[in-house]
């Protein structure tokens, strides 16, 4: 087979992206505290250790709380925003859309520092609540991007058809509107939850004394002996994020198909 330059480029590119990530699970099964080749043997000891680590469990629980709260709130805000942006035309609509999407490209550290300054000035003490606020800010643009694709094609005459066939507004919402946009909402929840779960910088600045999982991981890096079990935790997190985002993309495509437009865009 002839070696094509573009094929080689694609291969090198993908390798650069994913090979380092692959070392994480590989070393997490290595029977040694030192991260180096050759591998000493296979063990699941590091994973077993995760079961008995209360500090880690506390951090995980914090992350779940923040993730659930911020994904639900970000998705509700996203529903309102996406519906307004797709259904109504009002002055300043394009500018507003751009401003909402801006956190996607702003440096996270800038967002984190400015949030920290503002919250302290307002007299908030740092806690999981402040982390949640920060994560909502980070997640809303993703939520809007996902929901826009399921709302954009939503045909208003579907709701009219339901009314015309004798159903009232409430039944119409549950029998037509919700089923059609539900996959999009689910997709938004999963994506924003994943974003919150993986987010480090904002949590680092705003979490105070209650660490989230990424903060915990970072804090453990100081102890070389703890490294293997961080690798195990990282692998678990990696797989969880991958599964969550795959599910989210699956739902987003279904939502777009239901709304009658070809699946396009998206994050995966």
């Amino acid at each position, binding site marked *: 087979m002839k070696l094509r330059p573009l094929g080689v480029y694609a291969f090198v590119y993908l390798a650069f992206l994913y090979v380092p990530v692959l070392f994480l699970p590989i070393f997490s099964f290595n029977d040694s505290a030192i991260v180096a080749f050759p591998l000493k043997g296979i063990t699941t000891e590091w994973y077993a250790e995760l079961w008995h680590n209360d500090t880690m469990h506390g951090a995980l629980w914090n992350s779940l709380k923040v993730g659930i709260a911020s994904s639900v709130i970000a998705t509700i805000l996203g529903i309102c925003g996406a519906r307004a942006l797709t259904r109504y035309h009002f002055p300043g609509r394009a500018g507003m859309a751009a401003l909402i999407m801006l956190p996607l490209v702003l440096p996270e550290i800038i967002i984190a520092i400015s949030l920290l300054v503002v919250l302290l000035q307002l007299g908030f003490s740092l806690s999981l609540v402040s982390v949640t606020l920060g994560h909502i800010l980070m997640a809303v643009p993703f939520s809007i991007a996902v929901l826009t694709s399921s709302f954009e094609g939503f045909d208003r005459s579907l709701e009219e058809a339901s009314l015309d066939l004798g159903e009232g507004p409430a039944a119409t919402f549950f029998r037509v509107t919700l089923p059609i946009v539900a996959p999009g909402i689910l997709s938004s929840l999963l994506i924003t939850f994943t974003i919150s779960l993986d987010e480090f910088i904002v949590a680092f600045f705003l979490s105070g004394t209650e660490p989230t999982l990424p903060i915990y991981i970072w804090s453990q890096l100081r102890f070389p002996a703890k490294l293997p079990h961080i690798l195990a935790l990282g692998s678990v997190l990696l797989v969880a994020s991958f599964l969550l985002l795959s599910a989210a993309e699956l739902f987003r495509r279904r939502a777009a198909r239901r709304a*009658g437009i070809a699946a396009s865009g998206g994050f995966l």
Partner: protein
Amino acid sequence: MNDRIIIEIDRVTRKFGDFKALDEVSVQIREGEFFSLLGPSGCGKTTLLRQIAGFDDPTSGSIRLAGQDVTGVPANRRPTNMVFQNYAIFPHLTVEQNVAYGLRRLRLDRAERERRVREALERVDMGHLGARRSNEISGGQRQRVALARALIMRPKVLLLDEPLSALDKKLREQMQVELRHLQRAVGITFILVTHDQEEALTMSDRIAVMFGGRIAQCDRPEEIYQHPRNRVVAEFIGGMNFLEAAVLRESGNLIEVDVAGFGRAEICKPADAHINGSGITIGARPERLTLLFGEDAGLNRVVAGTVVEASYYGDMTYYSIAIDSLDRPVVVSMRNTIGRRSLAAGEKVQVGWGPESLVPLI
């Protein structure tokens, strides 16, 4: 069809800001009638249909449906059903579930519900496709599903919002015939919104031609075509030559006119039309004029002209004929029947006409 009135629209006005989408529209629609609202886009025909369906309420005026005032009653409590322009098939449901959608509120038992769905699908030749997902069917099939979904409700009035405009020409012509048959079979009043004059003429019992939020003329297709009341209606429907004429004499329903380029004729005018001034516009359909080839010189009124252009349509040829005293050519259509030769540009011809060629547009 009988003479009972099923829908009575009484001086309905609908304003959007300062714009009057409907301006004091009054019309009565009979039970079992195939009624069309015909007009260019923006004339208010869809707005009027949505008023009947209950998606929108009039700014003033009232709508009576089967003897009851339904003004302000929401769509879900009106005995009307609609076939939407884009069909509005529920994308998350199968064909069968779409058709059965409105039955939930009737609380039928399972066997009865299934029987009705099957019957409705068979009525539109979709009996074999009930289990299909709604994104797996073609445009023509979507339209049939939309029809079945509306008809299963046994509405007093079925509203159709440009249902054929998304279909290609061949399928559209086929569906025109099918819709007409279906309407006769179920005996339900159909109200069709269309901008396609041919569609309105072939399908309707009566047509209301709308312009600028008003009904310009409401009558049977033949009347609309042969006796358009004014120039906008005449222009919108079919081809028409517009000729200037002087009114010489008026007596009852008869007027004597002197048509520029043609000559004098005595023609009928509508009893309620009043002539202001001494000149009027006369319309003459291309097929109500003829070209004389020598063999059929029976018509006694003839003017001389020259062929400027011949447009060949297969079954018909449309000739533009320059007549000496007219600054614009007159269009005459001739059916290309056996034995009739085609004329070429530059040939001299005789244009035959008579009083029956002429329609006063007042």
